[in-house]
């Protein structure tokens, strides 16, 4: 069981780096969907105090439904609608910095685990740094990507990181809380999908750099 958990964590970390290096949006959407599946798996693998298996199964099902199937469909649809499916992102030095930042964040997370005695008690080995690194990777994607859709993906990854951090702390009652959060995220992505449509109509691009013209 522990080995499987370790493999899942390592896959999660590799997925993060793959997302940071990926140029095009479509593989990144697939990677986010893969990360969703890992999340569901981890939920069932991580030992929790006082958790209800039924509830966990329900939550894992919801995660698969929303993060593995729902979001990719929604995002693919938006991608095609704004006509970016065939575009590839501009190749530049940006991703190099993103990967370096991701590594720094991983090192920082590993260091932070040594400074937090309670992290070692609550989380399985490597789990805390992986979750924190996921959160940071998401934020790096939000900061580093110019396209609004790329930022939505970053936002989702950051949210996954937060979900992972809270996972071992889940009590019986918190399942409903997590479910409602999941619904929130779903609505957020849905709204962002619509907003991106409007942005692309208004600015003839979904490059958020153009938002500069909106500042006071």
């Amino acid at each position: 069981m522990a080995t499987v958990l370790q493999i899942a964590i390592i896959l999660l970390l590799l997925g993060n780096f793959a997302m940071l290096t990926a140029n095009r949006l479509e593989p990144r959407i697939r990677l986010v969907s893969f990360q969703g599946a890992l999340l569901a798996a981890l939920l069932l693998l991580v030992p929790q105090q006082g958790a209800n298996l039924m509830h966990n199964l329900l939550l894992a099902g919801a995660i698969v439904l929303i993060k593995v199937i729902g979001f990719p469909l929604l995002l693919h649809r938006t991608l095609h609608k704004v006509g970016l499916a065939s575009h590839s992102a501009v190749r530049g030095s940006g991703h190099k910095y993103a990967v370096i930042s991701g590594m720094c964040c991983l090192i920082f997370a590993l260091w932070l685990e040594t400074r937090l005695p309670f992290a070692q008690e609550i989380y399985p080995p490597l789990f805390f740094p992986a979750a924190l690194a996921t959160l940071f990777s998401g934020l790096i994607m939000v900061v580093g990507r110019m396209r609004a859709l790329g930022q939505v993906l970053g936002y989702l990854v950051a949210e996954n990181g937060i979900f992972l951090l809270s996972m071992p702390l889940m009590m019986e009652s918190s399942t409903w809380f997590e479910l409602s959060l999941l619904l929130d995220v779903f609505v957020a992505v849905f709204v962002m999908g619509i907003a991106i449509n409007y942005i692309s109509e208004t600015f003839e691009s979904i490059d958020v750099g153009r938002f500069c013209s909106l500042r006071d």
Partner: protein
Amino acid sequence: MELFLVALALLVLTASFLAAASLVPQVPSIRLCVHIAGPAGIILACALGMAGLFHGSWGAVVPWQAPWGLPLGGGALALDGLSRCFLLPVFGLGAVCAFSGAASLFHHDIGHNIAAHWFFYTLLVLALALVLTARDSVFFLISWELMSLSPFFLIEFDDHEASVREASWVYLVAAHLGAVVLLGFFALAWHMGGSSSALFAGLSLSPAMGSALFVLALVGFGAKAGLAPMHIWLPEAHPAAPSHVSALLSGAMINAGLYGIFRTYTLLDIQGGTPAWWGWCLLLLGLGSALTGIIKASGQSNLKRLLAYSSVENMGIMLMGLGTGLIGMQTGHMGIATLGFAACLIHMINHAAFKGLLFLCAGEILHAVQTVRLDLLGGLQQRMPLLGAAFAVGAAAIICLPPLNGFAGEFVLALGLATGVTLPQMEIQLGLLAALTGLALVSGLAAATFAKAYGIAFLGEPRTRLAANPHLPTAYNLVPLAFPAAACLGLGLAAPQLFALVAQALPLPQEVLAPHTAPLRASLHTVVLVGLAGMGIVALLVLWRRHLLRGAYSQKNSTWGCGFQKGTARIQYTDASFTDPQTEVFSRLMGVQVQSSMDKGYFPAHASYSIEAPDRLRLRLYAPLFDAVRRLCDACKIIQSGRIHLYILYMLATLVALLLWGFAA
């Protein structure tokens, strides 16, 4: 106290009604209702408040605790002699200016939310009354803030003019810079005393801490009082505001600054006695303000700006009084202390009367001729004799002609400074005598300045067509002027009684005061009699002249006609030429800018001469300072790039930094 509280309650009621009325559409019926009910409520409240001030002993402290729902401080009020003294102008001018404002705004309020105007006016009077009676730091600061904010909306009455908008902003910035210092003052006092009301119970402090509080109070309250070099908002705000507001601001609101300094002095108990430099600092600052104010005033060609600078001068004289009082206390000479403190309070009350009158007159001139620029006026005395007489009374009062009221304060102050020669220490003698010389110079310059103001505006021939055919003020407009004019005469004639009243409010034991009050009352009485005799002689001379000229051939010609067949208004003195002799002496201090041009040859066809005195402190000190602050703030905008992912980067960086800070230790 009960009457005073009823007055406050009535003000709150009036303000609530006006606030409600300002929110509904301004249909004619509502406007009429506001025009009548607003000023009527204010006048009634002020009358009640005035009655409350004279109810009870001036020597006693009457406290009152308001129910207070806020977590900090308490709604503590108290009426004592000092508060009553400073409340006199608030209620007196509050009522007169409301009356005058009601008369002038009745037909000229198109496009204004008149209910909002009266709302802020009521709020100002209410806040002033609260500031002058508050006995708790938090309550004081809240009242102070209300008092500082409401004039902003009053000054901005004619906000379609860019200059008015700028003036109100200058006011707001100055008021809040002062308020920032006051926050520091009250925070420090709270820290030292342990509670928000400890300051008002009196603080016993070390000289260093006491001096720190004193300096903070001097800067914070001094900005409100318009003491130089913090006076720059006065000459901007007063000309921009409607005249009844200028009168209230100049006659009552800036006194709150003086009150703050006076009150602070009475509350601080310094171990080992008040430091000697406090008194000298106040005396010097007062003399500096008085000189700056009057020298700048003499260079102005805008009547309201001239009056505003004159307020700086008069605040300086009041502060000189306070400084003299402190020096008297410090040297142990109670006679000088009595005279100094009394001079401060007497001049404050008198200033409110004559400055209120002059500003209201300026308002009527503005209404009649559409301008208060002296170079466009002239000959108004013939056309508006009653207005001219009122202005003449105000001008005669301000230049200290007895028996009008202006003389009393300056006479008492001069007496106090002159008593300095009885002190044993040579340096104090010299210092006080130097201040006396300065006071004499200020009075002389004030005489020249107001001779110019009255002479150029009211005498001679009209310089423009509008001045020749002014829109004559109605009786409704003139009646409000009668009250401050009567006050100028009444307070002058009753100067000994005013002194006796004010003496009860002084921060000195009555048994110490007693030996000094009787001789002073006698000398004031003599001066009043001399003044009355002077007036009688002038009246007799006028009657004698009439008698001699009766039946004789006499011909009336235009003033400054100089024997020309067809005189022209351009022959007469202008305000610039009137000021020219002073300009020769004080041009460097005045910061005057002279522009003259003349065609060459024996018969120059074109010649012009103009004098301007822009505020150098504002141009050379404050403008560059604020410009630098603006540039610094602009430079800080670089972090506000408008790029969303950069903002998220800030969040990420903050998160990492906080984690590092939290766990690295």
